[in-house]
């Protein structure tokens, strides 16, 4: 809900400063953070900027007493796995909070399990409970298409959707709903729930990352964990990424995170194997080329952790 404490209406002739308003809201900080920490995602960032600008201009209009009704802020994030939908949703909550469109700015992340009950009359209280919890913040429904299962007539998902729609429409000041899921499945979901599509103003599509973006992501992830790549390791990672991308079950940033986790395992193992030697600080934080080249992606062309890999290798 908007902060209504400032109700003085400015006269037509008075001037307002968009830049000052922008600085006062502190959203440039969040948007900068978004730019720095999230690699790629051009269309998403552009859209978020647009939304932020709209909200800011709306706030100025309100100062002059020009009303335009609360803008619909419900969103739909589609994209392949690991493209950063949850991360962006978190940031979105923060931006909306700084602009005063949600009071608390917390993110309540739920899946089908939290909304849909097991038996008759179980769904409505469950859904309402979640909505109550999300009021004043952002309700993030991950894999929203699981809510509705057209093949099962006795599924209670439809009930949850109906309640959700009602609150999305009537409590627009209290609640922003963000749905997220894979593109084709979300499209099917919206086809079977026409009311849902029209109630969501912003459809954001998260593009896949290209190899150089994935490498930057890897560097940021490593820096967060206080690791660094040696020069050879950086080259090895560059070779690793396109190889991994071609393999099945590739899920963008998540695959990279997993690969780095395993590289850390191998680094620890390598250090342990040479335990007779004394180690320096730089030994402990450096990931060598061997740690990355040890991956099965190089040796067998199989993603690590793929249960099929062992049987195929036989």
């Amino acid at each position, binding site marked *: *809900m908007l902060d209504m404490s400032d109700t003085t209406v400015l006269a037509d002739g008075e001037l307002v400063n968009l830049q000052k308003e922008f600085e006062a809201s502190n959203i440039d900080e969040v948007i900068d953070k978004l730019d720095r920490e999230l690699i790629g995602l051009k269309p998403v960032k552009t859209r978020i900027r647009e939304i932020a600008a709209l909200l800011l201009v709306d706030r100025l209009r309100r100062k002059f007493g020009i009303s335009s009704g609360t803008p619909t802020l419900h969103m739909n994030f589609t994209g392949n796995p690991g493209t950063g939908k949850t991360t962006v949703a978190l940031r979105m909550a923060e931006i909306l909070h700084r602009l005063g469109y949600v*009071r*608390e700015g*917390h993110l309540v992340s739920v899946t089908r399990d939290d909304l849909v009950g097991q038996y008759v009359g179980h769904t409505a209280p469950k859904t*309402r409970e979640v*909505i*109550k*919890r*999300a*009021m*004043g*913040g952002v309700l993030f429904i991950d894999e929203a298409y699981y809510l509705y299962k057209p093949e099962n007539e006795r599924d209670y998902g439809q009930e949850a959707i109906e309640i959700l729609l009602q609150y999305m429409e009537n*409590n627009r000041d*209290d*609640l922003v709903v963000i749905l997220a899921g894979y593109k084709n499945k979300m499209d099917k979901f919206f086809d079977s729930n026409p009311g849902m599509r029209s109630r969501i103003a912003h459809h954001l599509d998260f593009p896949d990352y290209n190899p150089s973006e994935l490498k930057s992501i890897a560097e940021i992830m490593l820096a967060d964990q206080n690791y660094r790549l040696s020069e050879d390791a950086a080259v090895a990672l560059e070779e690793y990424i396109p190889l991994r991308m071609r393999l099945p079950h590739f899920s963008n940033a998540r695959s990279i995170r997993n690969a780095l986790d395993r590289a850390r395992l191998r680094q620890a193992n390598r250090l342990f194997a040479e335990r007779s030697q004394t180690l320096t600080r730089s030994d402990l934080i450096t990931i060598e080329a061997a740690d990355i080249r040890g991956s099965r992606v190089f040796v067998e062309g199989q993603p690590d952790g793929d249960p099929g890999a062992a049987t195929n290798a036989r």
Partner: protein
Amino acid sequence: MMTNPGNRVTQGQFSFLPDLTDTQISAQIKYALKNQWAVSVEYTDDPHPRNTYWEMFGNPMFDLKDPAGILLEVNACRKTYPNMYVRVTAFDSTKGWEAPRMSFIVNRPPNEPGFRLLRQERDGRSQGYSIVPYATDKPEGERS
């Protein structure tokens, strides 16, 4: 009773004031949430002052951050029991307190008949007094 025109039940906070509006209720709830008290909604049809344990409407809302969710529950309770007393209670669970810190009535029956004074002869010439709400003349479940 000149001090309490209209014979309204005065229990909890704000009970001498006119009924709170929804905005005022949210402001009070906001204060409770700011202090991390768990807010719950209770109702009863027995306004006797010694009747402290009212029926609970739904679950206590431990994990809510925003008054809008609780106001939703208050309104649901008002709708279900328009002829009963509904109050909002904020419970402080910090050690040493562990007690309701706030409690105020948010809904009353349209007609509050008030209380009857009962006089009771006791041993010797002593006289005992108690009050009975007229509202409880009928058995439970048939009162509203």
